[in-house]
């Protein structure tokens, strides 16, 4: 009789010996879990640790650089000669990341193989790579190596974009492409650093292409072709902190490339095969924690560099920030290097201004010096309390909560003297799930008269972070501000008792 070997994991599973437990009836066992800290029960789904760390990055850069930089295309056909890739200077990923850091970004994702299949490192899987470039700058290029190195030096997170779709490879569309090319390329990239934070898998798949000279259309079943569960298993063995985005199934595409998430945006989703159906909004009763990432462009002509391009105005970028990071998503802002292999000055200048703007507008958190009270506060436990003072203690691991049956509450911030206020930011304690469905904000100039704030804004979900412009406009949010001696936040509805770890007022 064949013996099966069972891998006993550290999951503390209970294995029953069936011969001795056959019963005539089934009795429910009385099970209780000690709760000395009076902690609220989680509302599932909840994020795992890597997803929380990923979301805390909030704002990071995308770098589309490659063959298309030199052809002017957005999607290369795959038949481009390697010699076309000829940077006029040595590409400088360190410069890319410094520019991003000046904007307040905390990391970057470098495109190392786009749909055209040209690899920006000396891969063993194909000759269609930098070693055959048109000049010495190209031949010496190794973007994954240099990008990882620069990121570590700058204390920034890093990751790579690798296109599953490969219009150059003659094997694309066959199982051999996945095992001999794609998975091997992912493995090579994983070897550039076990501390990668994200691997990005574009959802554009299948279509016409060069395919080694076949020049035809090939389509694949995106639900099965790339064997994502086992790709994830392989990558996680080498890069345990890495979030596999998009088709990788650990963070979702926000559903547009315009830099906005829905005002209602649940991190819950029915994880299936990317792209999920409600990218901008999530699904309140989705079974899996799948937070949204918004990829958007800083320049106006495409993902790659194009002659004559210009950067978007800084206020427009700030609007994107409010509509993504400020709506429970992360913002992945694309910054294309030009033919020199560097970020052009006009883009770098814009990003510097954006960094200054973000610093200035969010420099002084007025909530830190406010008195805070709240209704329905949960009773403390042995080692943890849920007091309103947790909302402005600067500690993301403490939180305010109501008692179990209370799904609405009022939080009031009061200052000794009126303050000029423009933004209110709320952050749920998402370790125990996303809960808030609806809230509204009021302000008081004198401490007793209350006026509604944020006209026209759908104050629905919060999640990791929600930033509300009090004048109701994300496009022109700064304005003159409001003179407020007090601000009142009313949680109108929540899936379970609301948990908020931080309230900020700017």
């Amino acid at each position, binding site marked *: 009789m064949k013996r099966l070997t069972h891998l006993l994991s550290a999951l503390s599973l209970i294995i029953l010996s069936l011969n001795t437990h056959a019963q005539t009836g089934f009795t*429910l066992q009385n099970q209780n879990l000690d709760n000395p800290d009076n902690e609220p029960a989680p509302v599932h789904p909840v994020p795992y640790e890597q997803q929380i760390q990923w979301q805390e990055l909030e704002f990071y850069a995308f770098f589309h650089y490659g063959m298309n930089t030199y052809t002017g295309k*957005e999607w290369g056909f795959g038949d481009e000669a390697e010699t076309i890739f000829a940077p006029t200077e040595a590409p400088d990923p360190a410069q890319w990341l410094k520019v991003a850091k000046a904007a307040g970004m905390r990391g970057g994702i470098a495109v190392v193989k786009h749909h055209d299949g040209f690899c920006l490192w000396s891969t063993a899987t194909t000759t269609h790579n930098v070693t055959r470039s048109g000049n010495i700058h190209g031949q010496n290029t190794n973007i994954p190596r240099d990008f990882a190195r620069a990121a570590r030096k700058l204390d920034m997170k890093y990751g790579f974009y690798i296109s599953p779709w490969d219009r150059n490879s003659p094997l694309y569309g066959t199982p051999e492409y996945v095992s001999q090319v794609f998975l091997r390329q992912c493995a090579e990239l994983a070897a550039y650093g076990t501390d990668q934070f994200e691997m990005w898998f574009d959802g554009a798949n299948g279509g016409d292409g060069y395919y080694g000279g076949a020049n035809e259309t090939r389509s694949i079943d995106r639900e099965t072709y790339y064997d994502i569960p086992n790709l994830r298993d392989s990558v996680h063995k080498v890069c345990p902190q890495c979030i596999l985005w998009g088709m990788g199934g650990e963070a979702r595409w926000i559903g547009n490339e315009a830099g906005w998430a829905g005002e209602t945006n649940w991190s819950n989703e029915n994880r299936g095969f990317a792209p999920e159906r409600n990218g901008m909004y999530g699904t309140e009763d989705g079974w899996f924690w799948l937070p949204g990432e918004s990829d958007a462009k800083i320049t106006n002509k495409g993902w790659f560099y194009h002659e004559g391009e210009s950067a978007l105005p800084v206020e427009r970028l700030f609007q994107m920030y409010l509509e993504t990071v400020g709506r429970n998503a992360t913002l992945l802002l694309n910054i294309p290097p030009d033919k020199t292999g560097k970020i052009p000055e006009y883009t770098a200048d814009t990003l510097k201004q954006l960094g200054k703007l973000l610093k200035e507008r969010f420099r002084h958190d007025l909530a830190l010096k406010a008195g805070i009270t709240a209704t329905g506060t949960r009773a403390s436990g042995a080692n943890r309390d849920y007091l309103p003072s947790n909302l402005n203690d600067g500690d993301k691991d403490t939180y305010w909560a109501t008692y179990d049956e209370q799904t609405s509450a009022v939080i009031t911030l009061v200052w000794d003297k009126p303050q000029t206020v423009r933004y209110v930011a709320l952050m749920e304690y998402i370790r125990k799930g996303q809960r808030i469905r609806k809230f509204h904000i009021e302000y008081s100039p004198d401490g007793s008269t209350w006026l509604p704030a944020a006209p026209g804004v759908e104050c629905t979900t919060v999640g990791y972070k929600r930033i509300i412009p009090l004048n109701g406009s994300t496009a022109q949010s700064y304005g003159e501000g409001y003179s407020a001696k007090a601000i009142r936040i009313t949680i109108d509805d929540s899936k379970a008792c609301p948990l908020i770890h931080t309230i900020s007022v700017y």
Partner: protein
Amino acid sequence: MNIKTYLILAALASSFAANAQTATIGFENTDGYTAISIYDTWRESPFRTGKLKGNIAIVDNTLEQSAAPTGVAANPTEKILAFQRSRFGSNTFGVRIDLAQPFELTPKAKYVHVYLHKPLDGRVMLIGLGKRTDRPGQSPDVEQFWQLSSQPVAPGKWNDAVFPVKGAGGILIHSLVVVPDCESPHRLTEDFAVYIDEIIVNAAPEPRILPNNASAPDGYVQKTADDGFCYVNNANRNGEVLAADGSPLNNYKAPSGKPFTVIANPANGFTYEGIRIRYSGNPSGDVVFPANLFKNNRFTIPAEYMTGEMEIEGLFVELKK
């Protein structure tokens, strides 16, 4: 009150033998499986940390008498698997059954059938654990699929929950995890018992137990919204699809059952091959309208396609120079 009757599809039972299928795991004996245990995907589950132990057992089938008035029992077997759905587990907490004979996950769908009897409404899910055959060092416990049942499972009676499963090929599924309550348990005040039986993998998508009214169950049929509108979103790369008046399709309220004109607006350097419409609640019901139906980048979606919650994807491709 409508009386529902249940039919055991004996014809299907015989057709199972004709199709490739695994042995039925019926719990009358240990045929088909080697072990049963508790499983939770939630990494901090008390069932993973050891704070709580699960409760599962093989018991006599005292539920066979819950058959409908036809006199035919939905599940006449003698033994069934009982499982305590703990309110302390997550929404992916279930019972793990290690298979005596693994089956291959292929690009062509197979159907895992599970008899389920549970007291409460809620989604049910099947998780497959396994490994690639060409990776000898890989654990056989890697989660390979998470599939909700193709139809809702009605509480208080035997159902045949069907789970279509597929994968890249070259993957063997060694264990199945039946999640009988794929809902957040935070409102549960007590645990409840769930019963499982007659697990089989075959090529038949139809459930073995059907209500006698063959209409599609609620919740899985594309419905128009009660207010007479359908809600249209767009999910696009390299362009956008707009309403005829230029409005973005962000939860756009369009009259259901009426023609609706859209504009395809590709990004710089791109053109379009058409649009794809997806319907929430009907994952296999995508509709594609090719570009040759457009005139001046405009296309009017026929009335019969304007229903429920819709997502429009522009099929944008690069412009050939």
